[in-house]
Structure formats: C-alpha cells, structure tokens
C-alpha cells in the first residue's frame, strides 16, 4: 500500500470554532441552543385577535357588486346595517345597468323612466320593499329596546355606481320613501378629494 499525502482532517471545514471543536474533540460543551418562541407566539396571537376584530367591524357588512364603482367622498359616517338597493354601471341607454335589492335583480334601469312610472313608484321595487319591511317587523333583538329599534329602522342603503343618472336615483329614493324606508343613506368610498383627485385630466 503506497503512502499518500494526508488530506484535510475531519471537521477542519467547519467555520464556527465552537462547533469545530465539538466535532473534532468530541464536544466538551453543549452547543444545542433552543430558540425561545414564546414572544413570537404572543405576537402572532395578538395579531390574530386584532385582525379578527377589524374583520368583524368592517368586513361582510356590505357586499359590493363588481359592477358598482361607488363614488368617492370625504364623509366619515359609518354605515349601519340596512337593506341595500344597488344600481349597477350605466353605459348609456343601450347598456343600462340593473337595479338589485339585496344582490337580487329586481328590474333593469332601462325600464325606470317617468313614462313607465309617472308617479315615480317603481312597482317591482315596491313589492320587494314591502316584503322586506314585513320581515323586519318580525325581527327580534336581544332586548325589547333593541327589537323596537330593529323594527323601526327606516334606513336604506343606496349603493349606486358613479355613472348612474339622477333620473334613476330620484325615482329609487321616491319609491323607498313611499314604502317605509324614508332615510336614504348613500354609500360612498372614503377618500378626501373625491374621484377627480385620483383622475388624469383630459385634453
């Protein structure tokens, strides 16, 4: 057997001195360091609680139809729970949007004209509003005061696209007013400066 030039020793490639010593000399001292994860778990738990609270406060309060781009304004009154009338995008008389009540289509905006409804009472919407009011009268809260408050709530959220003409808005407001919902709340996106603040000027 021929004699070879000795190669590098085991453990000589290990960078850290303590570990190299433990590998080479069998380890006189333990280098097994545990990571203290308790503060990290605390942090995660607090983060989860905070996010759940935020989600509970604002999420799921109002479903936004993808065809509704709500106008922007600086108002800061919080939305309350109330029935929602949505008016989707108006792309001209050829492509008018729809009127939805609680995300169900009620009538096309093409039909909402003073010619068809001279008294501004949209019959199809009136029917669903009457049903909703009747259902609201059967609602019960945890306390008698809360029940009374629930049953007498005349608010209605009008969630309209920014392109919807006023002729449709006024007839929807009039119909809601004549069918118990006399306090219209216009839903908006909160931004100071309005929509024109985020727009590019055209020539």
């Amino acid at each position, binding site marked *: 057997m021929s004699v070879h030039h000795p190669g590098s020793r085991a453990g000589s490639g290990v960078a850290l001195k303590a570990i190299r010593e433990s590998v080479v000399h069998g380890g006189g001292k333990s280098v097994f360091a545990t990571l203290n994860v308790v503060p990290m*778990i605390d942090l995660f738990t607090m983060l989860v609680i905070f996010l759940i609270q935020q989600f509970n406060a604002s999420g799921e309060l109002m479903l936004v139809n993808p065809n509704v781009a709500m106008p922007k304004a600086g108002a800061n009154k919080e939305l309350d729970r109330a029935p929602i009338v949505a008016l989707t995008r108006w792309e001209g008389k050829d492509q008018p949007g729809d009127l939805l009540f609680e995300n169900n289509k009620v009538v096309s905006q093409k039909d909402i004209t003073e010619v068809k409804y001279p008294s501004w009472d949209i019959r199809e919407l009136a029917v669903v509003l009457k049903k909703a009011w009747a259902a609201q009268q059967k609602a019960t809260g945890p306390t008698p005061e809360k029940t009374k408050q629930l049953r007498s709530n005349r608010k209605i959220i009008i969630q309209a*696209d920014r392109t919807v003409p006023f002729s449709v808005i006024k007839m929807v407001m009039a119909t809601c007013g004549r069918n118990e919902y006399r306090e219209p709340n216009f839903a908006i*996106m909160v931004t100071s400066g309005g929509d024109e603040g985020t727009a590019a000027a055209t020539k």
Partner: protein
Amino acid sequence: MGGGSSGKGGVADANLNVVPFIDLLACTICFLLISAAWTQMARIDVDQALPKASPNKPPTPPAPEAKVNIVITPNGHLVNLWNASKIANPRPELEQVKKIATTGDFKLCRGKVAGDCTGSSAEIFKKYDYNKLRETLEGYMRDCNLEDKTKVMVAAIDSVQYMHLIRTLDIILTACKDKDKKVCLKNPSVGDVNLLRAEGFTSFD
C-alpha cells in the same frame, strides 16, 4: 423542542411541541390579511324632498327662513340663497341665481389606476368647480350669519351622474362658517328641480 428524559428516576421533561401552533397562527394571519376589506365605506345621510301628500296647507305659515338651493346641471352649479331679503341681515342680491360653470373634463379608468385606458373601461366626467361652490356656500354663511340648521336643498337635472350629486353633498357637509368648523351645513335634502321653480329658478341652463 422535542421530548427527552434525564436523571436516574426517569424524570420526564416533556416539552410542548409548538411548531404546529405557530403554523396555524401564521396561516390564520395570512388568511385574515388577504381577505380583509381594505377599502373603507361610509355613508351620506340625506332627507327626501318629495311633494307633500296632503293638499292642506299648514294653519300658520312659518316665518321665512333662509334656504340654500343648489341645482346641478350638466354645465355646472346654480346656487342661490332663497329668502335672503327677509332675514335679519338682509342681502336681497343673494336671491339671484349664481352660475358656477364646469372647468373641463377628467377621465377615470374602471378597475384600474388612472393612466392609459381606452374602450369601455375609460369614463369621461365633467369637472365641476367645487372650490368655488364651497367658497360661495361659506360666503352665504358668513354674510348672512347662517346657522347649521339652515335648510339646504339639492336638485339635479336628470342626466347628471350620481358622482356629481355625491361630491356636491360632500362639499355642502364640509362648508363651514368659521375656520374651526364648528358651524357647518348639515342634513341636505335631495329632490327634483321642479320644486325650485318657485324659489328663484326660472331656467336650468
């Protein structure tokens, strides 16, 4: 982590394996961050100005009160202060309708940030002079010493888009008499332009 034992009596040093718990928390945080609604919604309350159901007149006519009337037309705003000649600090000239014209157009892109957009995603809107409208309203409040209970009526021509109604209501609700914003207009009513024909508005051009 991990369990282990030491000592002669076989004392169990059982550590709780927290790795699955950390995984669970991390997944929950990711889910909540992704699904949270980051856009904040709010509301604007208005009163409805509908024609009265009862034809009977009230027994005693109320004392004349100043009332701010605003009409949104496709060409701009028309504003007046009705009954300005019958209040404590009479200013009859404010009953004349003041025109605040639009100042051009602006483009919004649906579902995208502002920039290059064409086709059905591009929407062109009239640019209304909201600064001038705010100055006018605040001028009415200062000149005639109006209170925050002052009635405000907003009407619009049928073709006016909803965005302009909301922005006008927003300006009304932030128009104040003083810099401290203690006395500001509130509770505007929304109605049809025909209700204003008897209050100084003869045409809506």
